[in-house]
């Protein structure tokens, strides 16, 4: 499985041609306790950089952007009843949505883990 990262603190993991998207551990720390996650509808087509998810903490709403272009194929249904799952497991069970990529070459513009960790310092 290969995981890539964006400058906006999203991660995207590719496994067997399916991409899973979430926010990074660093991002959830910065946001604090999430109380609501608004996920996209299945079947929605998103362009790279387009706002795809809204995560709401007690204090503020923040956009999560599609790391690459594609079509939403699945969303994490657990988050409706337990948005704090993102805080507990941002880079695992707290994933946000899955997507089918329209242009795999867009992945090449994203960071690998070392580059991302270097960016957040």
């Amino acid at each position, binding site marked *: 499985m290969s995981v890539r990262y964006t400058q906006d603190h999203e991660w995207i993991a590719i496994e067997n041609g399916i991409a899973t998207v979430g926010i990074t551990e660093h991002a959830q720390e*910065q946001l604090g*306790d999430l*109380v*609501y996650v*608004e996920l996209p509808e299945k079947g929605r087509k998103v362009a790279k950089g387009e706002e795809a998810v809204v995560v709401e903490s*007690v*204090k*503020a*709403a923040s956009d999560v952007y599609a790391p690459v272009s594609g079509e939403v194929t699945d969303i994490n249904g657990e988050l*409706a009843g337990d948005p704090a799952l993102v805080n507990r497991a941002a880079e695992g069970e707290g994933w946000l949505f899955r997507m089918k990529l329209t242009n795999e070459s867009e992945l090449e513009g994203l960071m690998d883990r070392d580059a991302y960790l270097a960016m957040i310092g």
Partner: protein
Amino acid sequence: MKQLPLHSLHAEQGAKFGPFAGFDMPLFYPAGIMREHQHVRSQAGLFDISHMVLVMLAGKDAAALVSHLCPYPADEQQPGKARYTFFLNEQAGVIDDLIVTRFATDRFMIVCNAACAEKDLAHIRSNAEGRDVAIEVLERVFLALQGPQAEAVLTKAGLDVAAMNFLDARELADGWIVSRSGYTGEDGFEIAIPVGLADDFARKLLADEHVMLIGLGARDSLRIEAGLPLYGQDLSDSITPMEAGLAWAIPKSHRDGGSFVGADALARKFAEGRSRKRVGIRPQGAAPVRAHAAVIDAAGKTIGEITSGGFGPSCGHPVAFGLIEANHEGALFAELRGRQLPLEIASLPFTPHRYKRQ
């Protein structure tokens, strides 16, 4: 950006900082807003509110000055008592909402909002001309300890506060000031401390197992649940106290004129009745509705605006205030990301006040 005198203590405690009113303020600590909020409701939370500005007015005309600046009879205020009031402009809009404490016949303290302090001071100074009043901005660290354990914690820390009731205030020796007041709806205290002694005192409080540091994030969710307005959001120079649901803070004697600033406009607005009102709002569903979202009726007509909103950790659901047309009846919605989210009017406060009264 200005730093709080105890900035390094907050940093050491893992605060995440953000800008507020020109200060780099702790927003939350590693426990997170949710746990901080719950801790205040169940134990005792320590807030650094040193961004607020304490102004001491001393001199034989101090009561007359306060009576001129605020819509209440300061000469009748009991020494040792604080009260909630306003500076009004000539349109009866709110320049700032304040706590004014009388310590002695000729000695008052005004607690100003940080973002308003500059205009407040100018307003005080221009109205003090020709009066025998010394105006001093106090150099203090200002802490709040809020929650059901606050009295026990302060008592253990050596402050003799058990006999105080809500809005009692005292000047202690050596520049310490303590009042039984706060911005959370809980019992609690606000303590002004000479800067050089504050770090030790804060650490002493933090050493108590009941005490946790609380950032601005939880301060906001606590005050919204408690129904308390925030200047700049729920109050402004174009919102009257009546519109903001704060007419209770203006005694009947001051509703039909007087010699205080804004008296004529205030009397007129009381006579006319309000065209807008602040209401508690319970968004239906789980999505928080935040400040500046439009409030619309079933036909899609804008009838107001959300002025504060977020998630209420003690309520377990979103909570908000809206400033809406006073005579509106029927369904309400907020516009949220292109959708219409149903709202319900809720009575305030969302969580009951637990002040210690006699």
